[in-house]
């Protein structure tokens, strides 16, 4: 009861104070809502804050791995085409000037060049920037002097950057530090984009007010009034959509960013983040990369007119694209110059001088970055076996490869030129002719060039690695080497007669010669030089398929060849890269070396992460190698490869083998000079028939490459266990130089023929008669 009363009285009391209590209620509600709003806002802010911190810290270092070509070594006595050096310097973005007084400049004259190198921090040592005077004599570098006139024994240019390994979003950037950015760039960005940058707190109320006036006048949203900080936020986390919601999110984020980091840090991040163009599917982010992308020069070497162009691009990289819209780009650039002059950053004279200059943008085709997709593919495949994808695309690794841009250019030109001329000659049947090419240095095993198709810049099917095609007669050196190991000699007579090998399925394997003729008894070396199928099959069946398979594996074939008799004539399918291993081993005198595309991988600080060392294993004796190298030279001098000497000097020793698959669907050539080994494949992706053989197709591209490369002559070292004898070719008997139909051939000691040809016996008697007379 008492309780009831009490309630009543309280109700009474409330009624009596109605207006006051209502206000109180509103106030409490407001307080509650404020608190709730504060808590939600606070949580939101904390969330945003954490996000900003994480992303800002993380984003700043997400840099794709950089892949470099081999650095060009310069040393006295070096054989180097002056034009190749010029191309190298152009590829590195050197400026050809009258006076090279800064790094990245070169004075070029007929017999000398003064190069002011930029220097580079190599993993093994630092190569400082140097002024080098290079003197040429013909196509040789006669001497190198430094700025004080002292001889320099060896120097390295910086390596050309050939590509990167990009994350899923395809963003690419070259990180720069704030100090590297030219002063004019910073000044231009601030003057054009955000004049109060160093004074505002992330957002500029002045800027927003100005933008609102513009928007109201235009009755639509056309200007954002964004500060550099807001632009950075936009580039970092948000889409480029111009909505109010996005703007509203930008504001607190920009304030928080400004709160946490100092202005220079934010500016540096901006310089590296801002979107400045599109290279195919790849987005060009940051001024470091943009400098390379538009001018092929490092940012610190840019001149005022170039800097102004880049600063102007921020507003609309696509609209002001200097390659597609040079007029617009120039107008925009000149506007930037005008603002800089009006604000007193540059003088009137500087402005007018800069305005007179062209845009100075390099052609996209001349850029090395992205120009070698097939080679990069090889590099990436190797890297992906060792590094997770995110490490490759974000840790800023440096990958040093052995790609030689000159050899690569010569290879792809040789392939394209040959394909074009074959198409002209043979017309429609080879309309879609394709090819692949692998070039190595036989002694080091380094892959110098890789061509994946006729359009070397097209990132598509990599035929050098993935076109698995029957290798045809390229297999024969393995068959003949096995024969030599089994006791055959170069003069052994092989039977080039029809052969029929019964197969397990009841059919027979009946190989024919290309000319449909049989050639009877022919010397071993000649059967290889002329690429006769019947005698090869006879030899292979005599020694056994197991021996041939074993030899192929020793020489470097990693797949297990199928033990069918047709293996002897190259029915096994391989990629140009796989068969290159075999010829690489032959060129290296029987020492198998892994074919290496990567020399070294370091982290972004230059610490070595992995190395791919030179590794050798002798798999065939030096003596047997000498014999097969002799026969492979005979291929070039008088066999199926002899057409090379219509374009190459007789003084150049070359060795190699042509290959044509069954039904003439593949045209192959593999061969080497002293310092170049190359494998070429030509064919159709649909596996159609070709109107030419290995010598009519692939050999032409190979020859074209060698004509350009001017390689060292191949010098076969003669091992101690080898001796030369004159042999009568038709019988394989020992003979003498003066006799008819003889040839001097190498033999492993103790394996020379025992019998004498008739002519040699007579001559020996004659000599002895003469000898006796002397003492009479």
């Amino acid at each position, binding site marked *: 009861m008492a309780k009831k009363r009490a309630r009543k009285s309280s109700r009474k009391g409330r009624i009596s104070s109605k207006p006051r209590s209502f206000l109180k209620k509103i106030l409490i509600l407001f307080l509650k809502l404020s608190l709730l709003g504060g808590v939600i806002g606070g949580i939101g802010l904390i969330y945003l804050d954490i996000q900003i911190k994480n992303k800002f810290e993380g984003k700043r270092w997400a840099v794709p791995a950089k892949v470099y070509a081999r650095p060009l070594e310069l040393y006295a006595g070096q054989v180097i085409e002056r034009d190749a050096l010029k191309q190298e310097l152009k590829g590195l973005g050197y400026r050809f000037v009258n006076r090279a007084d800064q790094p990245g400049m070169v004075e070029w004259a007929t017999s000398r060049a003064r190069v002011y190198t930029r220097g580079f921090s190599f993993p093994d040592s630092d190569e400082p920037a140097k002024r080098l005077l290079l003197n040429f004599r013909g196509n040789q570098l006669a001497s190198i002097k430094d700025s004080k006139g002292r001889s320099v024994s060896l120097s390295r240019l910086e390596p050309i950057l050939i590509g990167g390994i990009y994350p899923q979003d395809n963003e690419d950037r070259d990180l720069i530090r704030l100090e590297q950015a030219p002063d004019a760039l910073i000044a231009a960005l601030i003057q054009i984009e955000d004049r109060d940058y160093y004074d505002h707190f992330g957002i500029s109320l002045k800027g927003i007010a100005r933008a609102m006036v513009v928007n109201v006048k235009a009755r639509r949203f056309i200007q954002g009034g964004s500060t550099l900080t807001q632009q950075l936020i936009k580039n970092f986390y948000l889409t480029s959509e111009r909505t109010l919601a996005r703007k509203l999110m930008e504001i607190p984020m920009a304030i928080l960013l400004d709160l946490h980091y100092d202005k220079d840090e934010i500016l540096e991040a901006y310089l590296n983040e801002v979107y400045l163009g599109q290279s195919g599917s790849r987005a060009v982010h940051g001024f470091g990369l943009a400098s390379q992308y538009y001018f092929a020069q490092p940012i610190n070497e840019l001149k005022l007119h170039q800097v102004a162009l880049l600063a102007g691009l921020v507003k609309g990289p696509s609209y002001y694209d200097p390659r597609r819209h040079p007029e617009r780009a120039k107008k925009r650039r000149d506007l930037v110059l005008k603002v800089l002059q009006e604000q007193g950053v540059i003088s009137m004279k500087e402005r007018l001088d800069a305005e007179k200059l062209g845009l100075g943008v390099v052609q996209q085709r001349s850029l090395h970055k992205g120009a070698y997709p097939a080679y990069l593919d090889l590099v990436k495949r190797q890297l992906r076996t060792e590094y997770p994808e995110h490490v490759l695309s974000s840790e800023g690794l440096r990958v040093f490869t052995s790609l030689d841009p000159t050899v690569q250019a010569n290879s792809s030109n040789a392939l394209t030129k040959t394909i074009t001329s074959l198409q002209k000659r043979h017309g429609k049947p080879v309309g879609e002719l394709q090819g692949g090419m692998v070039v190595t240095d036989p002694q080091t095993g380094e892959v110098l060039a890789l061509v994946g198709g006729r359009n070397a810049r097209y990132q598509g099917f990599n035929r050098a690695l993935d076109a698995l095609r029957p290798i045809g007669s390229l297999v024969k050196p393995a068959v003949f080497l096995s024969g030599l190991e089994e006791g055959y000699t170069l003069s052994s007579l092989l039977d080039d007669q029809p052969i029929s090998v019964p197969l397990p399925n009841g059919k027979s394997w009946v190989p024919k010669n290309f000319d449909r003729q049989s050639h009877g008894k022919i010397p071993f070396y000649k059967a290889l030089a002329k690429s006769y199928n019947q005698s090869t099959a006879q030899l292979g069946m005599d020694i056994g398929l197991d021996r041939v398979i074993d030899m192929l594996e020793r020489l470097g074939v990693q797949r297990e060849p199928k033990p069918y008799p047709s293996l002897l004539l190259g029915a096994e399918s391989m990629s140009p890269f796989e068969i290159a291993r075999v010829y690489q081993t032959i060129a290296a005198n029987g020492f198998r070396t892994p074919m290496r595309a990567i020399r070294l991988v370091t982290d972004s600080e230059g610490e070595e992460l992995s190395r791919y060392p030179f*590794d050798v294993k002798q798999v065939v004796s030096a003596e047997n190698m000498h014999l097969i190298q002799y026969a492979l030279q005979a291929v070039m001098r008088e066999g199926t490869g002899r057409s090379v000497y219509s374009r190459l000097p007789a003084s150049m020793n070359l060795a190699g083998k042509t290959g044509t698959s069954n039904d003439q669907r593949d045209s192959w050539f593999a061969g080497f000079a002293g310092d170049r080994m190359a494998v070429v494949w030509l064919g159709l992706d649909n596996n159609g028939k070709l109107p030419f053989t290995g010598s009519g197709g692939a050999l032409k591209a190979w020859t074209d490459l060698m004509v350009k490369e001017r390689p060292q002559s191949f010098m076969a070292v003669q091992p101690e266990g080898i001796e030369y004898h004159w042999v009568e*070719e038709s019988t394989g008997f020992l003979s003498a130089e003066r006799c008819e139909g003889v040839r001097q051939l190498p033999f492993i000691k103790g394996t020379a023929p025992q019998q004498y040809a008739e002519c040699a016996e007579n001559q020996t008697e004659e000599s002895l008669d003469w000898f006796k007379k002397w003492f009479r």
Partner: protein
Amino acid sequence: MVQVTTRCKTGVLSLVILGLVGCVNGTGGYRPPVEDRTGTGGVTQSVEPAATGVVVRPAVTREARKEQSVAVPVPTLMTSRPQSPAVVALLDNAQKQKKSGAMQAAESSLERAQRIAPRDPEIYYQWADIRRLEGQWSQAEQLALKGTNMAIGDVIMLRRLWLLIADVRLSSGNQSGAQQAKSKAYSY
């Protein structure tokens, strides 16, 4: 020819005379001057110091056929080239780096040297020695063998390389192999 060669050994006088008639297979110190067609067009070269190589003549053209009936190979002597200052500097670096225990740097120097002069056996000698110091016996031996392949004709280098191989084999517990390598070294 074998018969003639056998007779070469019958006496000093006959050796001299047979030398005159062209006994090219003699095992004595005599080496014939030969054609090296990789030079400036068939210049006859002296024989010291040398490693031998082979040249196969080009396919016989109709014009050439008058003088030469078949394509004939000619054993050729390769004149060993003096080391370029660049290679000397790199080998010197490698040596210093190796001594100071900086094996990776030494290897980088050797790799650079190899790219410039891949036929210089000294490079393989030093490389093999690095692998020996690292205890990689098999690679040490293989690199030294590669060196012997490049050093044909250079007896001093061959002896050094085979002694290194003997050393490596001994370290890896291959006593008989070591002995064989040693005998080989002293056969030069």
